[in-house]
């Protein structure tokens, strides 16, 4: 094992799957850009050439549909959107086509498509360049949605997504690109439907995904100093969502807080709260709490931005109101 950053883990997953499987190709606006997708696609073009690493016209809907069509005819496309904000243009192909193609035809045509949606926010980029849209896609049946929180999962889940026969929206977050951890060199896959307990604890359950897992872990460490033992659950997949792991944890803790990097209303945090309140109601000892973005677009101004994005301090603060 060796340490690898999140972005290099993505890059390695792409290299290894492309090497192993000639059906895999990458397509998207900016995939060969020196800056758009960071290191995640570095050197792929040089190795696999223009037929398999395709930097396209600014035509998000067209190229996403190209990916869907390629998938149903036997390829394994990785359609890449350098920002989730731009995916709004491609909603028809994602939601009306990729997500429906298998069901609508009674299972006769699978869609082994991976869509990478990159969350790229902060840095005063403002409303149209900051969005994390997992909650929208979580709601669409027929498409899986995963959000790796660390380099190990970033690699393993991307490989699993590409090998999976269903459309998978794989959401990576630029705020995680420099995170490092041990990452096996070999090809491996991480499950697309299982959460993981990253820190064990008895007092309160903090459910998070992607970048917010880091914040939850920091919060847990800080809470430990006050003798509050928080359990941190990394959802990893938000569709399907691993209800069991949530329920098992609140059975122990009786308290639930959800830390999610999207808007509050109708977001991932609402779904997790709903799962607990429907299936785990009797386990709960206190009101559930949500730590999310407020229901407003992202502001540009630095000081407002600092208020906008919740962090571990906010989690700690909210946990303390529950103790």
């Amino acid at each position, binding site marked *: 094992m060796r340490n690898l950053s999140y972005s290099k883990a993505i890059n390695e997953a792409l290299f290894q799957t492309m090497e192993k499987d000639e059906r895999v190709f990458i397509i998207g606006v900016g995939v060969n850009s020196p800056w758009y997708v960071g290191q995640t696609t570095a050197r792929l073009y040089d190795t696999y050439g223009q037929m398999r690493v395709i930097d396209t016209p600014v035509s998000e809907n067209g190229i996403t549909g190209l990916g869907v*069509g390629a998938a149903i005819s036997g390829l394994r496309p990785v359609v890449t959107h350098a920002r989730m904000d731009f995916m709004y243009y491609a909603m028809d192909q994602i939601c009306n*086509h990729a997500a429906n193609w298998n069901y609508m035809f009674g299972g006769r045509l699978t869609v082994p498509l991976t869509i990478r949606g990159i969350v790229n926010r902060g840095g005063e980029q403002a409303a149209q360049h900051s969005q994390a849209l997992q909650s929208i896609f979580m709601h669409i049946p027929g498409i899986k949605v995963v959000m790796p929180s660390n380099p190990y999962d970033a690699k393993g889940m991307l490989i699993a997504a590409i090998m999976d026969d269903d459309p998978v929206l794989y959401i990576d977050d630029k705020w995680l690109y420099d995170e490092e951890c041990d990452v096996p060199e070999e090809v491996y896959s991480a499950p697309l439907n299982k959460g993981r307990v990253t820190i064990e604890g008895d007092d309160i359950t903090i459910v998070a995904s992607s970048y917010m897992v880091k914040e939850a872990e920091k919060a847990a460490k800080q809470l430990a100093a006050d003798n509050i033992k928080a359990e941190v659950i990394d959802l990893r997949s938000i569709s399907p969502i691993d209800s069991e792991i949530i329920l098992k944890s609140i059975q122990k803790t009786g308290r639930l807080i959800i830390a999610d990097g999207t808007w509050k209303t109708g977001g991932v945090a609402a779904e997790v709260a709903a799962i607990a309140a429907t299936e785990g109601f009797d386990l709960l000892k206190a009101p559930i709490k949500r730590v999310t973005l407020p229901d407003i677009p992202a502001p540009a101004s630095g000081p407002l931005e600092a208020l906008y994005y919740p962090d571990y301090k906010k989690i700690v603060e909210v946990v303390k109101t529950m103790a």
Partner: protein
Amino acid sequence: MSEGFSESIESLPTGVLEEMYVTMLKIRLFEEKVAERLYEKEIICPVHLYVGQEAIAAGVCQNLNIDDYVFSTHRSHGHYIAKGGGLKELMAELYGKETGCSKGKGGSMHLVAPEVGYMGSSAIVAGNIPLALGTAFSGKLLGNGKVSVAFFGDGATDEGVFYECLNIASLYKLPIIFVCENNLFSTHLPISMRQANPDLSMKVKANSIPFVRVDGNDAVAVYNTARKMIEKIRNGEGPAFIECMTFRWLAHVGPTPDLDVGYRKKKDVEYWMERCPIKKIRSVLTKKKDYSSRKLDDIEKRLKKEVEESFEFTKASNYPNSQNLLRHAINTESEVIQ
């Protein structure tokens, strides 16, 4: 009107003509049966009949191999049949039976027959076009010589994604043939009320894609034009575009003649019915020296029987059982838990 034209009829083998005739008549007879059942309200799902446009599906698909890819729209019985999809599975699908080509989950607007390269109908205007780009891309990447076809209506040329696809197909020289069936209307709205310049040719040629407009009611013209295009496409010359001028005889949706609604004139419908594509190819076929017109009766009888059988098959089929409701949204079935 035609830039593409029928050429000398004699140059076309009788076999090809007959096959197209059979395809077209099959579509027509099938849909006449469907229309009858629609009037009886036995078929519930929305049905967009193809009557009057049969030459296009037949003329294009006559040039295709079984493993070439076809995508179509809400109005897709004709393309499904012309590509070789089974009548039984089609009829059963319209009735929502488990034996339907989409296991009853799609209905008329969502047909599929991957076994013959019919990769699906999309009920979203223009939504199928990027998909055909995708199968074309896979044909190119895998170098398997397969051609992809996107059938779509003039309505699809209103959508932005159509223009994205023209450019992408041309830029990457993808093996795709765009077939626009210009029946002059998108539902009730004529193309003149939707496009400042209804002439498609420049819009297509501006993307460096060869464009030919043909009489869409003339199967031979469609066939000849598509044949030449597909030959070039298979040679790696990139996409081509054929616009087929035609008209639908019946309502946008459902089996009625649609004259009461007021958006089109009886005389226009009559003009186009005069130019029936099936009458036309039959007259070509029967003029062939080596063709015995007695065969026509046999064909019609055989096809009627086939349609009848599809109907019987459907009647004998079951509806999907309730477990099927939750299946197929994703492949790992256990993951859809309610």
